[in-house]
């Protein structure tokens, strides 16, 4: 462990951590656009410069390793001037469309421009990129807002391991590209959307959030992803009880700050009108158990032969207690009559690992059979 001082605060941190990370972990925010805790260091945005005691010139904090006894100031008149100047330059190549921008409120560039009081750029705006690509159902790429921080390239290479995009050309002409700027679908992209997650501006946005409200219109709901058994923490941005988009929750979780394509985009089932939200009992069983008074018989035509069978034609909803009662009494009857091996239990990969564990325990220990299986795929 190393001890250093940032803004007068004594900080203990493990060796090898950079100064910016040390500050962020201790609640000290140093402006940064290209740095991301889970990605390699780039140093291209130049914003995170700090004053280091004993150094004449400001030092880029993301590129400086913590060392014993370092004394660092993250705020000073000189640093404010530098950061203002840099944001000013950024805005010379970034349209100030904040009033209509979907990212307004969660855009990092906007945040820093606000914090440092940069109302507009003092430069003659010259925009290097105009490409707009909406070639896939998941996210759009609006290059005019891209500040070339390279987070998307790094996340795709270092975290996802796909490297579907990279910088192309150089200098003012450079932009983030698939090979030959082709459609995302023709690239090796797996549409995990982690690039969208780490993008600090509106250059990458989920299609589902376009024109559906901005940060202050959205409610954030913490949840566990229901798509598979891993149990990733997920955060749904919700408006009017509808999911607008999903992103990785930043708190401690099994998935860190990232999600897979299923969790990020595969949540439409949650609001599907056909989704079952309570237990149901078939109408003939319900009659025989006295839950329903209607003497219903299964029609001759199989539901599979009907174009759109309505679940309500066959089932009636019951409360959970009733459902448990029916299931347990039936199971007891079967075990008594034919022994435990007459029962087979099938679980779902959509249940969490813990649920699946409990399920097999139920089958083996309570019912007494090893007939347990699992769909094991999604």
């Amino acid at each position, binding site marked *: 462990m190393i001890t250093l001082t940032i803004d007068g605060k004594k900080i203990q941190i493990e060796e090898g951590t950079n100064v910016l990370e040390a500050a962020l972990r201790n609640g000290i925010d140093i402006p940064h656009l290209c740095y991301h805790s889970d990605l390699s*260091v*780039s*140093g*291209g*945005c*130049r914003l995170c*410069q700090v004053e280091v005691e004993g150094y004449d*010139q400001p030092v*880029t904090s*993301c*590129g400086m*390793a913590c060392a014993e006894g370092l004394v660092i100031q993250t705020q000073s008149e000189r640093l404010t001037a*530098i950061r203002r*100047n*840099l944001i000013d*330059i*950024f805005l*010379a*190549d970034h349209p100030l469309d904040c009033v209509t921008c979907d990212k307004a409120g969660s855009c990092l560039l906007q945040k820093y421009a606000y914090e440092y009081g940069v109302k507009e750029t003092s*430069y*003659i705006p*010259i925009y*290097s990129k105009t490409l707009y690509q909406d070639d896939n159902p998941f996210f759009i790429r609006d290059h005019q807002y891209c*500040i*070339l921080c*390279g987070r998307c390239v790094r996340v795709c290479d270092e975290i996802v391991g796909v490297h579907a995009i*990279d*910088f192309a*050309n*150089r*200098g*003012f*002409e*450079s932009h983030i590209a698939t090979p030959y700027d082709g459609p995302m679908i023709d690239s090796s992209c797996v549409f995990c959307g982690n690039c969208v997650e780490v993008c600090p501006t509106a250059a990458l946005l989920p299609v589902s959030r376009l024109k559906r409200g901005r940060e202050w219109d959205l409610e954030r709901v913490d949840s566990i992803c229901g798509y598979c058994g891993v149990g990733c923490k997920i955060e749904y941005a919700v408006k009017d009880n509808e999911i607008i988009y999903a992103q990785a929750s930043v708190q401690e979780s099994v998935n860190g700050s990232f999600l897979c394509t299923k969790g990020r985009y595969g949540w439409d089932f949650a609001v599907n009108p056909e989704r079952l939200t309570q237990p149901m009992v078939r109408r003939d069983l319900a009659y025989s158990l006295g839950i329903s008074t209607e003497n219903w018989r299964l029609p001759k035509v199989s539901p599979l032969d009907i174009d759109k069978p309505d679940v309500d034609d066959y089932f009636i909803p019951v409360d959970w207690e009733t459902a448990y009662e029916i299931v347990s009494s039936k199971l007891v009857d079967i075990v008594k009559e034919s022994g435990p091996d007459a029962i087979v239990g099938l679980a779902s990969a959509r249940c969490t690992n813990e649920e699946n564990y409990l399920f097999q325990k139920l089958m083996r220990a309570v019912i007494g059979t090893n007939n347990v299986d699992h769909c094991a795929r999604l």
Partner: protein
Amino acid sequence: MSREKLDQMADRERERQEKFDRRVFCCISTACLSAGAGRTMQALKDGLEASQSGDKVEVVQTGCMGLCSRGPLVRVRENTGEETYYADVTTELAEELIAKYVPLSEPKAGDEALAPEIIETRSRLEAARRKRTLKKHILSQNLPFFTKQVKVVLRDVGYVDPEKLEDYLAHGGYQALYKAITEMTPEEVCDEMSRSGLRGRGGAGFPTGTKWTFVRKAESDIKYVVVNGDEGDPGAYMDRTMMEDNPHQVLEGMMIAAYAVGAYHGFFYIRGEYPIAIDRIRRAIRAARRAGILGDSILGSDFNFNADVRIGAGAFVCGEETALIHSIEGKRGMPRMRPPYPATSGLWGKPTVINNVETMASVPAILLNGADWYAKIGTDQSKGTKVFALAGQLTNTGLIEVPMGISLREIVYEMGDNVPGDAEFKAAQTGGPSGGCIPMSHVDTPVDYERLKELGSIMGSGGLVIIDSTTSMPQFARFFMDFCVDESCGKCVPCRVGTVQIRALLDKLLEGRGQVGDLERLEEVCEIVKSTSLCGLGQSAPNPVLSTLQFFREEYEILLPS
């Protein structure tokens, strides 16, 4: 190969050379080639063949003789050591030269059936004997262009055949390497470099001995040596000349560096625009490998070393060492933040020495003659000599090697023989797109690292472009900004966007749309780019604008509304 065999090779070559009455050297360096040296060389060879005196005179192709503006250059060296230089040698002059210096021997017995074209050449040579034009082309060696030079790096350039290892050996080649690996410890070699005061000739001027010591002390089983031959400054061609004209000297310097730091592998990173340099270095490596100078157990010692060539592909920024490393690793040549410096984490994360071609080429002479000898040349802070590519609006342009601390006045007025025509000397541009313009008023400035920096320029790799009074400085500054915009890698925002903004401001001024306050704004933007950019390219990109604003402000002011 053992020392004895090496000496034998050198002696054999020396004996062979001494057998000739005289040797005719023809420069076939790029500049002379574009002036037609290829044809001149052919005419010399044909003439020699036709005269049937190949045993008395030898025609040798060599590298740069310096005065490129007067090419093709030919030098005749008598066995006695006496030398005569000829400038602007056309094919006709080449024949006259052969007629003058080569006796027309009778065809040997049994060889009567001479080919018709040879008979024709012989008759032309006969006729050329009566011409008297050659005299006018003699280049006096008393010209300040030659007398002011002190040759350390370029010592053998123009004398050795760059494609012949034996010739380099005959000129004392690889003796410094032998001395290093048999008589000195790596530590001593580093100390010797430190004492010599040699500083990086790529431009930044970091002490070479210190750099080597860092890498020597770095703990790692694998270390690398890289020769930076990505000479990107427009107007500079010192490194190309060294690689083309005496590749073995650079290789020898590299091997000494490798021995000093404990590296077993090295890379030449050469600019893709230099096909001849690439070819010559490759040949040199092959020849050295065949002779046992490169490879395992070098010269009978336990020192092993191998070298490879990597080719740049048209990116100025790859001259920056971290970008160069990325380029060798097959990636986009984008610089990264330092530290860690390449001395601790360079190529593939291993400690790496990166030195410029000229730095490496200085090493053998320093080891052979001693650090004290080298340190006597130059000034207090800047030791030794510097090679400059003298170009632009001057009478004499070409390649010069001068002691550090020489004044610009001597270079421009004496060596360069002033600006031709009615125009006047206005400024000297050093350091290429990263440097600045030094005006007439500072013409007595001694040329060394510190003084140039004080004037807002840099030593740079050695480009020295002279501008006369007909050049508009704002236009000139715009030319460099255009270069920097084109060559910016695009990684950091001040350089990527800032250089475009500086260029736009210059355009605004030059197109007559200037407003009061624009010059202050220009200075402000330049300062921002300079102080916040990630690498050396961005940090120095505004220099051409800032230095011209400092010294030629009036030329900018007239662009503003009165």
